[in-house]
């Protein structure tokens, strides 16, 4: 931890649960990661893996739901956000930590011009008058590649295309030069050609500002394009953590292997069936006792059914939560996946 001063965000043993009529739902279950200045971390997982709840927990946006952070620390520049008052959080949100959401139409106010929406954020956090905040807003719009920014600033969200709206969201998010930017599925609602524009914009902004980026997505391609490191989540837990290059070259967790194998590629031809991960994600109310992936894992042994594996550090920040890696540390043979069954 000698590089402590460069660490922007350190999440330690975060636990977030929802308390519903059916019982406690552990959405985020003992998650730890850290991210340094200038670094971009991807969090990838399927629906229900807890990736979005992790980001909402960091910004303490769970009020009004039945969700609650019940354990762990969220250290932002050394200060624990979980102990902050709502008022103190408001001075951080949109200012030092910003978030870009998936749906730009529902996250923008339809009755206010986009220039005013950006200026509002600037005036909320900085001592600026209307005029100079408006000028800043126009500058931000041109910075995110919106043509004719003066004209566009006076328009309403419905007058913009989906890609333009996402650019406005990004302009709002970076208007106060945040130290940490969290992007939650920022391109999922967009077409691929527009997605390419937005991803390249996010990368450019991050390089320019030197801030930290957390990219939350279900799309491994987006991770490969934008991130340095990646955490794979399954059922509320991190099951693997690696640099992006290592994750794609040699995935260590059977779930990651299955995930990578089940994506049909546009880059290679295959007449064969896709590898599949059998079954489905277990219900969050009835999580298995042992390894959470054991019921679907082609390598599972007795120990996997009974004990939850630790997140083991294989070497220099290469983490895997799998008994097979821990007891034997061996390469898992790929051919276990070759028999698509059941479907």
């Amino acid at each position: 931890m000698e590089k402590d001063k460069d660490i922007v965000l350190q999440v330690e043993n975060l636990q977030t649960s929802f308390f519903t009529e059916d019982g406690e739902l552990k959405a985020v279950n003992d998650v730890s990661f850290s991210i340094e200045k200038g670094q971009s971390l991807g969090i990838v997982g399927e629906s229900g893996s807890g990736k979005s709840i992790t980001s909402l927990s960091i910004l303490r946006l769970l009020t009004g739901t039945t969700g609650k952070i019940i354990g762990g620390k969220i250290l932002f520049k050394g200060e624990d956000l979980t102990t902050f008052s709502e008022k103190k959080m408001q001075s951080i949100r949109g200012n030092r930590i910003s978030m870009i959401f998936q749906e730009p139409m529902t996250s923008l106010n339809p009755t206010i011009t986009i220039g005013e929406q950006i200026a509002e954020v600037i005036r909320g956090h900085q001592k600026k008058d209307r005029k100079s905040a408006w000028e800043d807003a126009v500058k931000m719009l041109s910075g995110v590649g919106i043509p004719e920014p003066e004209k566009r600033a006076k328009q309403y969200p419905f007058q913009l295309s989906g890609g333009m709206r996402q650019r406005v969201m990004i302009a709002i998010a970076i208007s106060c030069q945040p130290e940490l930017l969290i992007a939650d599925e920022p391109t999922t609602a967009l077409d691929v050609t527009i997605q390419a524009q937005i991803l390249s914009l996010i990368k450019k902004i991050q390089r320019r500002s030197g801030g930290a980026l957390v990219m939350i997505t279900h799309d491994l391609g987006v991770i490969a394009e934008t991130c340095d490191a990646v955490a794979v989540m399954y059922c509320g837990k991190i099951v693997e953590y690696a640099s992006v290059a290592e994750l794609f070259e040699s995935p260590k967790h059977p779930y990651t292997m299955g995930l990578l194998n089940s994506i049909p590629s546009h880059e290679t031809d295959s007449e064969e069936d896709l590898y599949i991960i059998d079954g489905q994600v277990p219900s969050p109310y009835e999580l298995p006792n042992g390894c959470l992936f054991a019921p679907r894992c082609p390598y599972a042994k007795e120990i996997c059914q009974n004990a939850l594996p630790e997140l083991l550090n294989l070497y220099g920040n290469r983490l895997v939560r799998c008994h097979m890696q821990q007891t034997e540390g061996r390469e898992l043979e790929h051919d276990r996946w070759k028999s698509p069954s059941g479907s």
Partner: protein
Amino acid sequence: MTGGKVLLEVKNLKQYFPIKGGLIGRTINHVKAVDDVSFTVHEGETLSIVGESGSGKTTIGRSIIRLEQANGGSVIFDGEDLLSLSNRQMRKKRKDIQIIFQDPYASLNPRQTVYQIINEAMNIQGVGNKSERRQDILNLMETVGLGAHQIDLHPHQFSGGQRQRIGIARALSVRPKLIICDEAVSALDVSIQAQVLNLLKKLQRKYMLTYLFISHDLGVVRHISDRIIVMYLGKIMEVSGKKDLFETPGHPYTYALLSSIPSTKPTGEKKERIILHGDMPSPITPPSGCPFHTRCPYAFSACDKTLPPFYEARENQQVSCHLLKKGPVDFTELRKAEDF
């Protein structure tokens, strides 16, 4: 695969949606969702239609099965023009053409059980023997990977992937020849998507099905298709065999589309990327000439004047682009040479 007999022939299909305006709600303009589109589907093949939102790919599927009333052209299925059939005749015809929708939540009746959902489809089309109906439905459920104990459950008791399986079982129950899959796997997580794709392939082999597969996901399309149609603003840009489309795309739009998909290959061998500027123009006021010319990095004087005809780039690859007048273009080479 393309050697089979022609099952479906779409000729000059036009589907315009009126825009009402003014005080008395007159039609003031049209959205040309599908504008003069022609193609054929052969028996036993999977023909995919790809494109971005607003390209008209979904509308084509809906016009074929007459969920929309087309404004022009013809849809010849098994020798008969579907567009000239009466509603009653068309209902009968839907025994042969089924559709699977994107959203399995919205396309199943929440008040019905799996048995009732499938039974209703079979009743309407008069398929099979009523006394053996329950057994038939159980067999269908087994085929699509659902358990016999689930026959009396309601849609909300299933996961998204399972609901899509119910939709597939319902489509299969009337023993169709052609299934239109409209973004059938888009709402599913990748691990579940893989299961459903494998199932669709298995069913195709088993029942000699023909698929018209509508999708925006080029990875999925490469996996499942024999041939692919690329659409942009209601027009076909390129029709190509799968291998040619991905290895030597004929149209600059196809080339840009392929290069904008994030690659999951480890860094180092990343391909060069073109980022198209701007957005797709409005289909209400499409550009003159080639609809893609406003975003095309290679556009020249002819492009905003006339709609390019289809040129044969390779055997089995037709491309609507003026650049191909003198033969196929290698875009990778072209980019190197002109340093875009």
